[in-house]
């Protein structure tokens, strides 16, 4: 491997591996992937060792790891199942957003909810508002000391298992600048949770539609100011984009491991298929892709640790890593041949999982727009 891990990073990764070996066995993952289910009880062991608040500072009850270190842990976890890792990441990314944009009291309140082991969700997308966040229609209307929320949301990660949401609602008709962010307790009357989506991949990650009908939210639950919702959403996306990239690297590594192992064992024409040039070329390309992706993610995480803007780098990382993962996982299936095309081996699941990463946290088409805009800015007179 080209990445030079520190002693501490090796220890964190080892603990993640011990956890995965014990609690995320292939049998368990396969069972829930087939069912498309993710019971909360599956996450209890993870919560017990602090995986749900890995990057959160100690004063909020987290482990206080850097972005760089926590990314390596989640990369390892994603080798077992990316959907499982995504569930844990979504919670602490939501908390981090409140810490960045909200008051100290709000952050502490949010942390108090998730610290004992509850989940958080971030919800912005709607049926007619995916990449075009400015089309969000769900409204928040101020009435005295509270806001009344009405509208429907789509594809809320963790929506079905969360106890607290960050929701983006429209407070004025000012396009993107008319959006505001709110902390919403799940138990507030008027919230309904729809059916868990029957997704192609990331099936252990809970994804649901949410409905809000006359949901009363105290005014002090507004995060930041009215109209700042899009900035909060973009902050959240910067973080989650970087973590999605790290999960993708984990899936790619797993695909490489499975393919290389199989290629050494499978014999055709009296020799292991790893001796054939076409297979060697695929393995070489896969290994190179995994290493370059990992280095790119690591660099982005280091920038985040230094509080540098990662608008461009995060987008580039997400774009490159998730695109190249399609080829890596597809090649893994190809190397395993007919068996790779069945559920008997895990590689078909890896291929299904990484497709989702090209779409969520901002589609790769949006990432290209973001990158192009940032590049153009640098060359403007």
């Amino acid at each position, binding site marked *: 491997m080209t990445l030079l891990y520190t*002693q*501490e990073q*090796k220890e964190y990764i080892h*603990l993640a591996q011990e956890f995965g070996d014990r609690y995320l066995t292939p049998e368990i993952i396969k069972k829930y992937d087939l069912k498309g289910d993710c019971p909360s009880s599956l996450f209890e062991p993870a919560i017990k*060792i*602090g995986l749900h608040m890995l990057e959160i500072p100690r004063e909020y009850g987290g*482990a*206080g790891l850097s972005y760089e270190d926590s990314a390596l842990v989640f990369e390892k976890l994603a080798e077992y199942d990316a959907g499982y890792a995504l569930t844990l990441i979504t919670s602490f990314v939501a908390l981090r957003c409140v810490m960045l944009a909200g008051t100290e009291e709000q952050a502490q309140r949010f942390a108090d909810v998730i610290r004992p082991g509850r989940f958080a969700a971030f919800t912005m997308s709607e049926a007619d508002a995916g990449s075009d966040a400015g089309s969000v229609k769900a409204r928040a209307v101020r009435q005295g000391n509270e806001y009344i929320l009405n509208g429907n949301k789509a594809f809320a990660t963790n929506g079905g298992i969360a106890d607290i949401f960050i929701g983006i609602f429209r407070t004025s008709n000012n396009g993107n600048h008319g959006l505001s962010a709110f902390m919403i307790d799940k138990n507030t009357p008027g919230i309904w949770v729809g059916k868990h989506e029957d997704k192609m991949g990331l099936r252990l990650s809970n994804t649901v539609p949410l409905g809000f009908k006359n949901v009363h939210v105290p005014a002090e639950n507004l995060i930041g100011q009215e109209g700042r919702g899009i900035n909060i959403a973009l902050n959240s996306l910067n973080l989650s984009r970087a973590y999605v990239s790290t999960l993708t690297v984990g899936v790619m590594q797993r695909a490489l491991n499975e393919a290389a192992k199989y290629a050494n064992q499978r014999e055709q024409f009296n020799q292991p298929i790893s001796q054939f040039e076409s297979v060697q070329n695929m393995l070489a390309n896969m290994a190179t892709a995994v290493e370059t992706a990992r280095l790119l993610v690591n660099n982005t995480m280091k920038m985040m640790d230094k509080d540098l803007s990662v608008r461009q780098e995060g987008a580039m990382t997400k774009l490159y890593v998730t695109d190249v993962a399609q080829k890596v996982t597809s090649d893994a299936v190809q190397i395993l041949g007919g068996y790779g095309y069945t559920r008997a081996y895990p590689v078909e699941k890896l291929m299904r999982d990484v497709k989702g990463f090209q779409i969520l946290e901002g589609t790769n088409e949006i990432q290209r727009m973001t990158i192009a805009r940032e590049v153009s800015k640098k060359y403007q007179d």
Partner: protein
Amino acid sequence: MKIALIAKAEADNPKTYTSHKNKVTYHPENLFLSEEDKSALEFALQLTELKKGTIDVFTFEQNEAAERILHEALAMGATTATKVSAGNINDPLLQNQIASEFVHYLKENNENYDLILTGKTTSSAFPAAIATGLGISFYDYVSMIDTSLNYEMKLEKGKITGQCVLPAVIATLDSINVPRLASFTSLSTAINSSINNVSFKTSDEGVTSEIVAKPVKNEKAIFNLDQDPKATQKLVEILKQNGMLR
């Protein structure tokens, strides 16, 4: 209750060493606390949670593996961690010397442990030597033990049961429990904690042992039953050697 744990790296894990043409190369970057020692530490934690006490972890491993093992032990809940530099603990000729020096160190520092635990991985010589030096009981191959110190000791065709008499040295198998996982918070704390360092002087005169890997046989045996009258006999011999025939 004062407990000491002698912690070792996971020795028999394919990731921890590679062999090529009979030469063994250890990979210290892959060395972590052994499963047997984790189980021993888990037992120690259960005892101290019940009866109040401390757990001092010692390791004789060298290089980066030592710190890693001690961090893991602290993260799980050990009280203190000490790295002992005394030569190669895996060398059978040095083990007795190191054990003797360790006993001397314990006596000199009035470390009167009620219990010295170690997970079973290699020879019994080391923990046995410590028990002899301290003049205390030694229980080996303990496959079950509870917090009342009722134990079972595995035999080939049965077991010995009884109750441990303290003070004692106990070498446990990893079947005694499923050890808890450390949390990331405690691991982060452990990584930033201080580790004690102790050195023993041991003589390396006459130490000539080295570890040699078992050669891997790749040749295929071909038995021509038509041409070789002894082919059947040879085949049976090889199957017996490989344990496929009794």
